[in-house]
């Protein structure tokens, strides 16, 4: 009985995925498409859970739906609420209707063709017996990899070079964002209810991040999920009106964002000097080295995602004199207006 039940569940899940994706992609209004995109991300996390990929489900929910959604919402907040007229303008701005219709039909044809060929090729790939060579190789070498969670073993030991370059991608993104100018002006405090929520939610999030980092060695979790949850704690702090979100200033901030790549290089090159291959951890120390690298990577990922949400380097408190308390205390007496004045002060006018 339960195989048909599972099949029904699969079909429902797949249909909801497709409809959410289609809705998010065809709606005219930017706000609505972001909310639909976040919903799509959460249902996709459900699909990862169903396909027995818990690590990916955690990352998808935290990064794919959560933080990407937060980044998009922060970006759309600044745009005037312009929804398009009836039909979407062609990308190359061809405003006469004829060209646009041709272009749209060509693109739709292209996409349908792509879907057909992809499915045809994938169906063929599934026909041939699944090639388990790599999965067995991972199982065999798992014992000497220093961790018992196979995904973490692949990410931080067998294919550690991929993760090193991926952290370099994150570093490039944040350096690009720094070069583009100062952070967004801060948020007004959202009132006492949200502040009290933030008051106890942020410590729990930080605790969860530490737990996920630790548990990554033998169960689903790891540096990326932990970093995303730490960034989520920062986002909550930021939404409750806290300006610098506890991020360090100038020099220390650079050390934190380069921590992931730096630690990887430190470990890799010191092993090279000791005569072992680059990133070839000796089995005895592998667990410890992986945890060391994961801690640095978590800090780098959290700082990068948070700075992306802020939009650049946070303006330090002392710059314009309002010495706000670091922890969000209950500001029952103070009305929300004080932050408004400080926000409209010279902050935006100051050249970057």
């Amino acid at each position, binding site marked *: 009985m339960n195989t048909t039940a599972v099949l029904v569940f699969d079909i429902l899940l797949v249909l909801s995925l497709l409809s959410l994706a289609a809705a998010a992609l065809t709606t005219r209004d930017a706000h609505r498409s972001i909310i639909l995109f976040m919903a799509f991300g959460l249902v996709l996390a459900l699909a990862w859970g169903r396909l027995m990929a818990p690590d990916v489900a955690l990352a998808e929910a935290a990064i794919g739906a959560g933080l990407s959604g937060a980044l998009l919402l922060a970006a759309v907040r600044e745009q005037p609420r312009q929804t398009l007229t009836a039909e979407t303008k062609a990308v190359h701005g061809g405003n006469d209707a004829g060209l646009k219709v041709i272009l749209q039909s060509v693109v739709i044809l292209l996409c349908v063709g792509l879907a057909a060929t992809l499915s045809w090729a994938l169906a063929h790939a599934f026909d041939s017996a699944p090639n388990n060579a790599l999965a067995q190789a991972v199982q065999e070498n798992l014992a000497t990899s220093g961790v018992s969670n196979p995904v973490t073993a692949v990410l931080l030991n067998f294919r550690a070079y991929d993760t090193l370059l991926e952290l370099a991608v994150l570093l490039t993104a944040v350096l690009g964002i720094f070069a583009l100018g100062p952070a967004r002006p801060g948020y007004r405090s959202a*009132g006492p*209810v*949200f502040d009290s929520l933030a008051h106890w*939610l942020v410590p729990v999030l930080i605790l969860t991040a530490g737990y996920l980092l630790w548990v990554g060695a033998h169960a689903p979790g790891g540096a990326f999920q932990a970093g995303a949850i730490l960034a989520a704690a920062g986002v909550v702090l930021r939404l409750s009106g806290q300006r610098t979100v506890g991020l360090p200033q100038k020099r220390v901030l650079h050390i934190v964002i380069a921590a992931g790549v730096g630690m990887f290089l430190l470990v890799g090159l010191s092993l090279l000097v000791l005569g072992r291959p680059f990133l070839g951890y000796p089995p005895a120390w592998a667990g410890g080295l992986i945890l060391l690298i994961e801690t640095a990577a978590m800090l780098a990922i959290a700082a990068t995602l948070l700075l992306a949400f802020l939009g650049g380097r946070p303006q330090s408190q002392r710059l314009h004199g309002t010495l706000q308390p670091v922890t969000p205390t209950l500001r029952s007496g103070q009305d929300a207006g004080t932050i408004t004045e400080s926000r409209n002060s010279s902050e935006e006018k100051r050249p970057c």
Partner: protein
Amino acid sequence: MIDIVSSLLIVSGLGFYLAGSIGLLRLPDLYSRLHALTKADNLGLGLLTAGLTLHAQDLFIAIKLALIWLAVLAASAASAHLIAQHARRRETRT
């Protein structure tokens, strides 16, 4: 015996989810929809987690399930308040 009780709990939880969704679709204005969603879904989730804790192998998972419920409870209450506050501000301002 435990299976019957937990499946009973889960089915009743789903009943509340259904009520919440119907409330979302049918109720006229924002505030009543918010009301329906946060109340029904939280209760549904409570029953769901209660049903699941019966199946939990050890105490640690049961505590984690309870923590999930508490976190969702707080988050949905706070966000419902924020949405209502934002809507109220926009009404008074326009």
